[in-house]
């Protein structure tokens, strides 16, 4: 079930350069949210007409609150970063399908602002009693969400500049650490996802990846945010799937990156 709600900002905090963490009070959205889903947040400035799709980082179902951690990349996210506590805005969610959580050793692989959805994923898998490893790729030593992730998983770090952990990619860090698992859950930039898919194929590991694309409606109607599918998709009747409605999480072999 998707809801359109006016939500209230509970907290807003900058946790790294250009990265913000915001908790919002929802009515029903948090109750229905699962790891890997996203919400559409709408700007209040009327010249910005499209919602911004942002992944759900953490959920508190009892309090019906949820957390997003996002990077300021343009005027819309800049507007969000200036929302103060008590301010309200329109949100639609939860949207998309989320990860299919399996009761087997998990390897979470994420880069940059692909890291936030891993927190709720790690939390849920940990709650199921699954052993969780999280491999995070950062630009530098600004390791946002690392301590949160450590509550639920063993965290392995890769940095672009080599300031912490393995210097290089998340795949370099996996190889260096020798970590092994049964299921991969991944989110991050497309080049990273391509490498993760390749790694999963080479090692014969089930792999779920979360994709992103410019979105308009966010609910599957406008066909803006499509990705290429390996097979003819039942809904589209062509080789495309809707990231917002059929995804954002896909099995890596379903889609062409």
């Amino acid at each position: 079930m998707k809801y359109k709600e006016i939500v209230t900002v509970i907290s807003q905090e900058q946790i790294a350069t250009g990265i913000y963490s915001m908790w919002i009070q929802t009515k029903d959205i948090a109750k229905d949210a699962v790891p890997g889903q996203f919400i559409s947040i709408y700007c209040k400035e009327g010249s910005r007409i499209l919602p911004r799709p942002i992944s759900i980082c953490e959920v508190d179902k009892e309090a019906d609150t949820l957390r997003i951690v996002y990077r300021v990349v343009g005027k819309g996210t800049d507007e969000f970063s200036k929302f103060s506590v008590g301010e309200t805005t329109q949100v639609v969610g939860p949207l998309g399908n989320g990860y299919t959580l399996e009761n087997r050793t998990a390897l979470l692989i994420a880069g940059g602002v692909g890291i936030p959805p891993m927190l709720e994923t790690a939390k849920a898998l940990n709650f199921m009693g699954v052993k969780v490893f999280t491999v995070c790729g950062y630009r530098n030593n600004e390791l946002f969400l690392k301590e949160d992730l450590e509550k639920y998983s063993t965290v392995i770090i890769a940095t672009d500049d080599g300031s912490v952990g393995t210097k290089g990619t998340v795949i370099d860090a996996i190889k260096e650490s020798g970590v092994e698992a049964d299921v991969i859950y991944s989110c991050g930039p497309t080049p990273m996802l391509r490498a993760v898919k390749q790694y999963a194929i080479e090692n014969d590991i089930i792999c779920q990846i979360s994709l992103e694309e410019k979105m308009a409606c966010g609910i599957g109607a406008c066909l803006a945010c499509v990705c290429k599918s390996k097979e003819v998709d039942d809904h589209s009747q062509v080789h495309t799937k809707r990231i917002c409605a059929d995804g954002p999480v896909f099995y890596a072999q379903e889609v062409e990156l």
Partner: protein
Amino acid sequence: MNLGVNIAGVQFENPVMEASGTFGSGVEFSEFVDLNKLGAVVTKGVANVPWPGNPTPRIAETYGGMLNAIGLQNPGVEVFCKRDIPFLKKFNTKIIVNVCGKTVEDYLEVVERLSDEPIDMMEINISCPNVKEGGIAFGQDPKCVEAITKAVKAKAKQPVIMKLSPNVADITVMAKAAEAGGTDALSLINTITGMKIDIHKQTFAIANKTGGMSGPAVKPVAVRMVYQVANAVSVPIIGMGGIMNGDDAMEFILAGATAVSVGTANFMNPTATMDVLSGIENYMRMHNVEDINQLIGIVK
């Protein structure tokens, strides 16, 4: 209060529809909007065979609007008839099917396939700026507009709406050509061709380079064109272009539109259609008007 309007013999409960391409076939928006409360559902364009659409990115936001170049991705008329029409028949609303094609034969194939389906009207998209063949190519030449209108009218069992492009020097020429071809109604405007450059990536913001501009920024252009066409032809007009609320809709109705379509606003607010409807009702109460038909085209 009477909100009912009649277009080519089809009676609509109210004048609020949504614009083709912004609403799919209504399935996704039905989680937010009671489709029974819409005057009509106008479906996304459907072709004779499935179309894959354009590469991504397909959209970009612009100031007070957006560009899109979806490329009329659609599952083809067969799947549409088996899946989407039965879904829409569950609701007490009118069904207007938008038809697209690359050649006259493509359009006619869809029109014929739809002729015995339980739909109320067909809207012929001769104005899509985002597909190389067909679409806008038909909509920019009055001889083509008249010929395709005639050809469609000869096959169609339901009343026909020709959807006009704003990307012409004089839209009344196209409107008159469609009227000469025998169209039952007109809808306008489709999107305005635009472009956005991503200055940091130093490339086009959408993969198709150009896209169709829509949203509140285009509304004055759309109102002007609806006014011009309303004063040039006698067939009814469905007006659209940047309608966000009831006041916007009233501009189109006062300019000469019998009905209005809500497009890009659906992205800004999934219940925008209902806001437009209640806004029109509020306007009528405020101005003490009993029948919406009394307001159509009264600004001269």
